[in-house]
């Protein structure tokens, strides 16, 4: 099992940027009013944000990063690592991180690269950045995480009402005295078809036919370039895999469930998250949500939940937190960290 710890680094700040446009599920006319009520009640999403055409994840991450650098009074020339983690990059190539290095004015000595991850992005990213900070002499890093993906079909009730868009920036730095972070990262690629955009990559290279809409089921019309979500498979995966991953990490880090003040989960949907919470016997006040207001924001869901629900707590208190991302891949993982003085500017609208 990929259980390990990384010493000597910490999160200094988190910043989030969301599109200004709010989309309400009560207005989702593709389905009946009764179905809309059911989506709001069970899936737990009242509204979400939608970017204007042409706005990308990197645009939102850029705004979030600029705000964070300014708030922390970091000097750009001190930032030596930029990692961009997303399932919605600007181009097939080059890596979006290279474009962001230039746009942010980071030094040529900075290393910058992309990681292709979605729901588990934040925990995987922390482990990658943490290794550079702890073992490679890098002192300051930016992790830019988010998804602005127009790939859900409006006429697909199994995807469209779920997903919201956001970009985030996390500032991380070397800290000799930081408590180690504990990780448990896992993969089960046998579930790769459960959350998938089947066409447009190299396996199914784009051609005209891929844009033809097909009726898949009642209320589900989409084309090959759009997101497929097998709700049952994702539900089954989440109920089987998330709680054991967290319990193994608690045991590995010698912590009990009560030692953790907040559990921040990827915001899949209310049914999944609440069932996982009950499995772990966690009180609801320890498990914050951003789902109702922002939807499932894919890779951005963990930092967005921290900033929208725990902004004051992470700034003022010393906390033990457990973060857990799970989904597309299937890829999932959790991290336990001690936090102190994480500066989070107010959420920016773009």
């Amino acid at each position, binding site marked *: 099992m990929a259980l390990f710890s990384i010493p000597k680094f910490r999160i200094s700040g988190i910043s989030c940027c969301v599109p200004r446009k709010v989309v309400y599920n009560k207005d989702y006319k593709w389905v009946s009013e*009764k*179905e809309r009520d*059911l*989506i709001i009640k*069970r*899936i737990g999403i009242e509204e979400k944000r939608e970017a204007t055409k042409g706005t990308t994840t990197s645009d939102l991450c850029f705004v979030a990063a600029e705000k964070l650098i300014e708030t922390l009074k970091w000097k750009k020339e001190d930032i030596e690592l930029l990692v961009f983690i997303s399932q919605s990059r600007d181009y097939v190539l080059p890596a979006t991180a290279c474009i962001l290095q230039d746009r942010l004015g980071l030094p040529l000595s900075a290393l910058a690269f992309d990681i292709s991850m979605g729901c588990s992005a934040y925990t995987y990213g922390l482990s990658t950045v943490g290794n550079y900070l702890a073992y490679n002499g890098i002192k300051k890093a930016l992790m830019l995480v988010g998804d602005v993906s127009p790939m859900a079909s409006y006429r697909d009730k*199994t995807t469209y009402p779920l997903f919201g868009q956001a970009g985030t920036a996390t500032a991380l730095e070397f800290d000799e005295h930081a408590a180690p972070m504990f990780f448990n990262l896992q993969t089960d690629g046998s579930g790769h078809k459960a959350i998938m955009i089947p066409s447009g990559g190299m396996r199914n290279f784009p051609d005209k036919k891929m844009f033809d809409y097909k009726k898949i089921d009642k209320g589900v019309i989409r084309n090959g370039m759009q997101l497929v979500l097998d*709700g*049952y*498979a994702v*539900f*089954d995966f989440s*109920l*089987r895999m998330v709680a054991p991953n967290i319990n193994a990490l608690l045991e590995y880090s010698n912590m009990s469930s009560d030692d953790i003040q907040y559990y921040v989960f990827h915001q899949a949907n209310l*049914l*999944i998250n*609440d*069932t996982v919470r*009950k*499995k772990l016997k966690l009180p609801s006040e320890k498990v914050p949500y951003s789902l109702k207001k922002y939807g499932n924001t894919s890779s951005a869901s963990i930092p967005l939940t921290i900033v929208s629900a725990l902004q004051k707590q992470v700034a003022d208190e010393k906390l033990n937190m457990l973060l857990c991302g799970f989904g597309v891949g299937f890829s999932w993982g959790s991290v336990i960290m001690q936090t102190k003085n994480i500066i989070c500017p107010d959420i920016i609208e773009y």
Partner: protein
Amino acid sequence: MAMDIQEFIKKVENEFDDLKPGVLKPESRFADVLDWNSINALTIIALVDSEYDVILTAEDFSKSETVQDIFTIIMSKSMK
């Protein structure tokens, strides 16, 4: 753990506001008493996980006709 189908029915009735008490019977088909869509099916999967620590799958539903069929699957899975 002793399991009682009446208790299961009560739990399902409590979960769904539009299900009047007494309507759901062991021989009922979910599709006849509820709007049968994936959200309602997932709601039952969530309920069963929380109450019985059993994970039902899409396949369990597709091979079940009635409430009794689902309850039988829950019982057999909880023995394992």
